[in-house]
Structure formats: structure tokens, C-alpha cells
């Protein structure tokens, strides 16, 4: 991405720092919950899309079943909190462990598949898991789980009723964690393996890359981050049911965010979330109540346009604008 030059990395770093500072200062400036809520959603979807980006963007395995990990994260921590009184932070770790375990068990056979077969297999897995949870009476089935409200606010209980600022910073932390992990992978040996698999799986295997092991590793990381997002969602919304944490539409939304921003780039998913979430919230607040699906109409058209004209997403658009600028 970055062309050679001494000035540019400094500039980029400065801009990132400024962005981070702005993000940190945001709650101080905007004290109302709604703008904070929008930012929290941007962070959450940014983190989820970043997690998806690791398996799909870098490793080339298009998973359409990310909601499985999200739901596992949400359910594990909520049930442990409700029934065993365990702090959601420990529940989050348990959820991550469970999601990683499931990802390995499911991933091992499914990674034999390629291309569209793989994508559809992940849809199938997602649908089966959702149906099983719905049918599982012991964990509430379709009736979902109410996360018990505990007062006063505390970090241990992962509930903040007085101010959204805590949620805000936790979501921001989640996003930064996802970005840091991605950044690390990008520069590590595993990152090269991932990209090699994406470009040509057979060639990568011929060069001695253990293809299945690398895919499983990418999926494990992705599942772990997604499960953390699930726990956050459960503690933020305080009510979960299979319809809201396991649906196919969530899996697809996660992908759309990343695709819009730019797949296989560090900042693409964040950019996608920063554009898409305000677009959705904004159109709903302004047009909601008309009973027309105008926001989705715009949304669909946008996705087609991006796919057809700029398959690299908004990041590619930016890169092009930049090279055009520096060519002058």
C-alpha cells in the first residue's frame, strides 16, 4: 500500500495517532447516548468484520457462518453469568475457548472443501447450529436469555447503566485488539502462508505449507475475536435469542462491511463499518416509520456498484486517489 518514501510513514502514523486520540476523546465531547451508540456499533461491526477478514480476506476462505462464533460467545458468557454467577469476563474467555474448539472441530472436515462448496458448507453449519439452539430447551430455546441486571455498575459484572462510556471504551478496545492481531498476522510468517493459500492453495501446498493447519489457525483467531464480540453484544443489549445472535443475515452483514471497505487490507473493515453503520442508523432515524425499505435499497445498489466497479472496496478507491495524487 504505502509507496516508498520517508515522509509517508511518519504522516500515516501521525494521522493514526490523531484518529486514535479523536476516538478516545469522543465520549467527552458527545455525552448523549445515541452518538455513542452509533460509535459502539461501528467499533463492534468493525471488529467483527476485521475478524472475518483474517479468515476470508487474508486466507481466502469465504466463511458465511461467522454468526455461529458470535452466538457461542454471547450464549456462553450470558448463561455462565446467569446460572453460575460467573463474571462475563471469565465467561468471555470460556466463550472464546468454546468457539475456538467448535471452529477446529467443524473446520477440520469442512476445510477439505473449496470455493463455493466451502461457502455453502459454512451456511449449512450456521443454519444447523441455529436450529439446534432454537430446539434446545435447557438454554431457553427460542425464548432466549435475559441477562440479569446487576446494580450498581461494575467492571466485574460488565454492566454499566449510568454511562455508555465504559461500553464505548471496551468496544474500542475490542476493535484495537482485532486490528493489532491482524497487523501482527500481516507481518508474520503465518500471514505469508495465509496469503499463499489464498492465491493458490496447490502451489502453497507444493511449497511445503501445511494448508489445513494454516487454515485452522486463521479460523481459530477469527472465531476467538468474533466470540468476544458476541459476549460484548450480550452484555450491552442484555437480551439474546437465537434470532438475534445466530442468524445468517448477521454472517452476511459482517462480510458486507468488510467487502465494502476492502477485503484483505488492515483498515478496510473499519472503513466499511464507519460508512455502513451511520448510513443504516441515519436512514432508519430519518426514514423509519414510512414502512418502505429505502435504506436497504440504497444499500443493495451500493454493494453492486462496489463489486462491479471497485472489487477492492473503498480502500482500493482511496489508494487509487492517492497514487493519482502523488503522480502529479
Amino acid at each position, binding site marked *: 500500500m504505502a509507496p516508498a518514501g520517508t515522509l509517508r510513514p511518519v*504522516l500515516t502514523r501521525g494521522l493514526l495517532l490523531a484518529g486514535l486520540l*479523536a476516538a478516545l476523546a469522543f465520549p467527552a465531547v458527545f455525552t448523549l447516548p*445515541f*452518538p455513542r451508540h452509533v460509535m459502539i456499533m461501528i467499533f463492534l461491526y468493525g471488529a467483527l468484520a476485521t475478524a472475518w477478514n483474517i479468515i476470508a480476506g487474508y486466507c481466502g476462505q469465504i466463511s458465511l457462518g461467522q454468526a455461529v462464533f458470535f452466538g457461542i460467545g454471547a450464549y456462553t458468557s450470558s448463561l455462565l453469568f446467569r446460572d453460575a454467577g460467573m463474571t462475563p469476563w471469565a465467561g468471555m474467555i470460556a466463550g472464546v475457548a468454546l468457539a475456538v474448539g467448535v471452529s477446529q472441530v467443524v473446520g477440520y472436515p469442512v476445510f477439505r472443501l473449496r470455493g463455493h462448496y466451502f461457502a455453502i458448507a459454512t451456511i449449512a453449519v450456521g443454519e444447523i447450529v441455529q436450529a439446534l439452539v432454537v430446539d434446545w430447551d435447557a438454554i431457553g430455546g427460542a*425464548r432466549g436469555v*435475559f441477562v440479569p441486571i446487576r446494580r450498581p455498575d461494575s467492571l466485574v459484572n460488565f454492566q454499566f447503566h449510568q454511562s455508555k462510556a465504559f461500553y464505548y471504551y471496551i468496544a474500542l478496545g475490542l476493535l484495537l485488539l482485532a486490528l493489532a492481531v491482524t497487523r501482527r498476522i500481516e507481518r508474520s510468517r503465518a500471514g505469508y502462508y495465509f496469503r499463499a493459500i489464498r492465491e493458490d492453495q496447490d502451489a502453497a501446498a507444493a511449497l511445503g505449507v501445511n494448508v489445513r493447519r494454516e487454515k485452522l489457525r486463521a479460523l481459530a483467531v477469527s472465531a476467538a475475536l468474533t466470540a468476544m464480540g458476541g459476549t460484548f453484544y450480550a452484555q450491552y443489549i442484555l437480551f439474546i435469542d437465537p434470532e*438475534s445472535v445466530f442468524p445468517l443475515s448477521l454472517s452476511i452483514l459482517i462480510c458486507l462491511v468488510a467487502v465494502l471497505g476492502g477485503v484483505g487490507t488492515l483498515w478496510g473493515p473499519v472503513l466499511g463499518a464507519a460508512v455502513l453503520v451511520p448510513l443504516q442508523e441515519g436512514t432508519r432515524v430519518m426514514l*423509519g416509520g414510512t414502512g418502505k425499505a429505502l435504506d436497504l435499497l440504497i444499500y443493495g445498489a451500493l454493494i453492486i456498484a462496489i463489486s462491479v466497479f471497485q472489487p477492492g472496496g473503498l480502500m482500493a478507491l482511496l489508494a487509487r486517489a492517492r497514487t493519482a495524487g502523488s503522480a502529479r
Partner: protein
Amino acid sequence: MKRIAAGLLAVLVLLVISAAGPAGVAAQPKEVVIGVLYPMSGPNAQPGIDNKPVIEIGADIANGAVDLPFPFYQKLKGMPGLKGAKIRLIFADHQGKPELGQAEAERLITQEKVHALVGCWHSGVTATASQVAERYGIPFLNPESSSPGLTRRGLKWFFRTSPHDEHFTQGMFEFFRDFEKKRGVKIATAGLTYDTSLFGADSGKVMKDLAKKYGVEVVLDLQYKERSTSLQSEVQRLKAANPDVWMPTSYQTDAILFVRTSKQLDYNPKMIMAQNAGHLSPDFIKAVGKEAEGTLSRAPFSTDLIAKRPVAAALNALYMKRHSKDLYDFPARSFTGFMTLLDAINRAGSTDPEAIRKALVATSIPGDQLIMTWEGIKFDETGQNTQVRAIIVQLQEGKYHTVWPWDSATREVLYPIPAWADRK
């Protein structure tokens, strides 16, 4: 990079706009602001779209723009308790999604400074939105969600005027008992079908519990996936089990498909007792109203009562004028809940949340002033209205008529339902 900065700036600007919004206007003391949360878009928007006009009528009554000439409503005219403060409504859309219900409730409370909330139809959304209200200490009036658990969460600020699934289902079993006394037909076995939604799961559980209590044997207990592409195997199993009464819980899509499929497969239940929802929806009646002849359903309200109850008839005229549709169950419940809230605010004489809450607790509205056939409205300590009464309606000649309790009935129960082969 400049573009990123510009992008970020645009996002910020958008947020500032949404933050600034109409919040500044709210400070007027002579105004009561009420937030109304309903699904207004997406595939589940029908209730929201049909409830909006009836809520507006309610506000107009209090604002003196519309007249409903009955004492209870006359008392609210001009909100004398608040010396003529005006009611201002703010509608918000949650699309049937719990997380949107939460976000919108929070936005309404903190930015629009609403004094009370009404909503949300879907039980799952009501669950999250009412938790927000609880957190901020804002009264939340729920006119229609039927999940029993909602009033068992120990919330202080949550009130529900409508019966929940247990009341309704109890009504169904009481009907079986009364029916046996009157016509000598024993309903001994039941076949249950319900979908995998929150509503379906709740209903299934309540029906199973009550069946045990009333000594009705459940011979088929079938949960199916909502919006199925085919219900052939479900109907085959019903046919094989052949219970005395088939008790379906479905949203409209599946309700329609069930009727068509049982016609094709020649399944002839003698009695069908539906759990409201899909079977009462106008789409259902329009699509298969004739084929579904004889379907019984529990209901809090029935259109044929409009003629019997002058209050309902007067409101129906207003509703017809505004929305070109007859009043039915959804808007009727919505209106009742909303007026209960207005009554409490009027008695509180202030927009202070605690005063409104206290007034809600003290609510006592006599049944004859309601458009519903309830005994009245009084809340218990969980916020549930205890004066509810379920009615049973039956589809006869393409329209629903009240058949139980016997004293409100406008028609006799049609039993057994004629077999497909015997119809013209």
C-alpha cells in the same frame, strides 16, 4: 489519507447532526412527550403501520382535536390535570429487532426527552426497550406483547394492559370445559403445532402446562420452523395423530400454508383452536378466510363486538376515517394501552416520571369505558393488568364472530368443522 480524514469528518458531522437534532425543542413545560416504538419497516411492520393512526387518534382526543363522547375520554380532553398541556408523539421504528428497540428507546429518552414510552409489539423488542426505560426510570406501557415472562422480571417501571399467553391459553381450556358442559362433547386429546419463534416457544410451553392441569392429553407436540417452504409432513403427522382439537400457533405465512396444505392432504380436524397472531391477521382472512371456516381463536378483541359496544363503534368510525380500515385486535389493544397511560399522566398532574408511575400503579378504569370486553384495568405489583378477560372467536362465513364467553357471544359455536369433502 486526506480522503480518510474527509470520511471521518463526514461521519462526525453526521453524528453532530443526529446529536443536535430536535432535542433543543423539548424544554417547553406545557407539553407531554410520548415515545412510541413500533416496527414501521421490514417484513414485520404490519402492526406498527396499523397502530400508528390509532395512537394519533388517542393523542388528538387528549388534545381536544377529536371527540369520543364517553365519560372516561371526555375526562382526558385537554388534559385538565396538566392545565391543557399538549400531547406530542414521537414515533420510532425498531424493525422487530431487539437491539434496535434498545437503541431507539435510549435515543427517545435521552435526546427527545420523552416522558413515557409505549410499545413495542414484539416480545423480544419489548424486553430490551423496557430494560432501558427501567434504567432511566421512565414509565413504559406495553399494550400488547404476550410473553408471560415480561412482567416477571421485577421491573418497577413496566406496565402491561394486555392479557399474556397464560391468560389467553387458560381461556381456551376453560372454553373446552364449558363446551363439554353445554354440548356434551369431551375434548380429551390435543395436537399442538407451534413455530420456533419466541412467541411460538412461549405458547407451546404454556399450552403443555395447562393441558396437564386441565386433563387434556397432548397426543402430538410439534415444533416447526417458521416460514417453511412446505408443511406437508407436519400435516401428515397431525392427520395420523387425529386429536380432538388441533391447537396451532403460527404467524400469518405459516397459518395460510397450513390451511392450504390440510385442504390438499384432506386433513379434517373437528376443532381448531388457534393462538391468535397469524390466524387473526387480515392477510389470513383475506387469503384463506373461506377455507379456514370454523377456526376458533383466542382474542382480546373481535370486530363483531364493535357493533355491540358503543365506545368501540365510535372509535371505529374515527379509525376508518383516518386509515380506511376496520379496527381490529392490534390497534384496539394499542389504543387501550395508550389511553391508560394518558389517564395516568392526567391524574399525575405532572410529567415527573415518578408521579406518572405512582398514578399508573393506582390505575382503576371500569370495563364499560373500554373498547375491550375486559372487566377493567388494574395493575398488580408486577405491572400486569389483572382485569383481563380472553374471548374466543370463530371464523364463520369468512368473518370472525365472538362465541365465548356465552354472555358476550354473537354466534353459536360451529362444531364439528365440516370435512373438506362435504363442502361445496
